[in-house]
């Protein structure tokens, strides 16, 4: 049984054309699945539907074969490209970091988050520093089984990128999580993924079924 399974998903924004229909996708335990495709095709919307930000119009997302519970921390967490848009600018870093529970101390250390960041405001951290906070926040609830990284490191320099990915991959493997990595960066996907998907195939396969 797949860790996360989406079957027959369809989504559109109020009254507009379908962004995708009959889309099926699964992520197994310990897998790193790469997803690439043209801009504006609906990859980010799919990520939001999988992570429970939006409800699918048709179809269902299941975890370990069961529907995702409505309450509590969502087991599918999403990290976005722009961390400054994913945090409350009027909260201090400590509150943002603890939003989903207390993160693992070893993870905090591996991400290079230091005590003196915690008292600052989001605008006082660089993009790379703030992204570390968002990653720690996403991984902190014990219920998290799948992490979706939507262009998570596209704004970051190569050294920050490789450092963050090494930490995330090690942590995900340790916890037997599944990862879905959405990116335009072919080289990055080739480097870190255990399986690759192209958006067009995903949609075409789904239609054929």
């Amino acid at each position, binding site marked *: 049984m797949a860790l996360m399974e989406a079957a027959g998903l369809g989504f559109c924004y109020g009254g507009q054309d379908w962004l995708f229909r009959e889309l099926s996708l699964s992520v197994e335990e310990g897998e790193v699945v790469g997803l690439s495709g043209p801009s504006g095709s609906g990859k980010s919307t799919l990520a939001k539907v999988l992570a429970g930000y939006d409800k699918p119009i048709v179809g269902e997302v299941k975890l370990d074969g069961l529907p995702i519970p409505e309450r509590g921390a969502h087991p599918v967490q999403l990290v976005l490209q722009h961390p400054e848009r994913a945090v409350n600018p009027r909260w201090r870093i400590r509150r943002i970091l603890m939003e989903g529970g207390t993160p693992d101390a070893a993870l905090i250390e591996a991400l290079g988050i230091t005590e003196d960041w915690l008292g600052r405001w989001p605008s006082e951290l660089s993009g*790379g520093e703030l992204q570390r906070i968002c990653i720690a926040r996403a991984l902190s609830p014990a219920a998290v089984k799948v992490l979706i990284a939507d262009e998570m490191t596209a704004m*970051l320099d190569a050294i*920050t990128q*490789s450092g963050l990915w090494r930490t995330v991959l090690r942590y995900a493997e340790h916890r037997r999580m599944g990862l879905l990595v959405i990116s335009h960066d072919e080289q990055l996907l080739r480097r870190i993924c255990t399986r690759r998907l192209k958006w067009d195939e995903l949609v075409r396969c789904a239609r054929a079924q």
Partner: protein
Amino acid sequence: MLEIAGLSVSFGQYVGGFRRRDIPVLNDVDLDVDAGELLAVVGSSGSGKSLLAHAVMGLLPENAVVRGRISYGGRTLDESLLRKLRGRELALVPQGVSYLDPLLRAGKQALGRQRGLAAKKRVRSVFRRFGLAEQAEEMYPHQLSGGMARKVLVSTAALGGARFVIADEPTPGMEPESAAEALQALRELADGGCGVLLITHDIEAALKVADRVAVLYAGEVVETAAAGEFEGTGKVLRHPYSRALWQALPANGFRALPGVQPSPAETASCCSFAARCPIAAQECAAGKPPLRKLRGGAVRCWVAE
């Protein structure tokens, strides 16, 4: 054409009531860009690269303290010269489509205040040069793709008669094809005789169009190198940070480097990279290395040969 010498920028900040302290963000930056040259400034977020663009354009906030000299065409680029050149000879290509007027068709937008048939013809020829179809002139910004929007922004600079263009992070989040197109438009400008300063965190993209690359770390230029020197394992590069940046690319080993970039204030009297450097020697913690010429480029390192 553009020469930056010993540029330092700091921000005055009030800490706990009325105590004021200066937070340095750029330290002793030396750079020059010739006509027809495209210089890429690469560095991580927080290295001060956007502030460099703002310093040149005179767009720093009120509490910024600026030292050093920026000159353009041999003249000091001060407030009065900036007022004459900015938006005309000197142009900033901003990050994206949100800087276009959403209610104005692209062709009209690129025209600016120019009118008449001759001006329209100029728009057509510039659009063609940057690979924009005739239909693009009639499109509204929301109909343009990210790549097209950037090309319209570059065209606007070209039509305004820009001789020097600064582009600040023109490509993030774009698919590779559009990003390549937007950068190619900048290359075209340089080939037409413009000086271009391209500011980006994406070294791979920058290398496709740049003549030279300046690497920024913790507010300092640590190396300037020819674009072609970023190749293979990076062994001809001069600074260990440039090499680490190159080797961290997914295609080049994806190597990690422990530690984080310090703030310029923490490393005022030592090499800013010493704490993370694989080849650091004793002198590196004892004094700040100057930017010195080395093998046709420049490096800020005590050890590099």
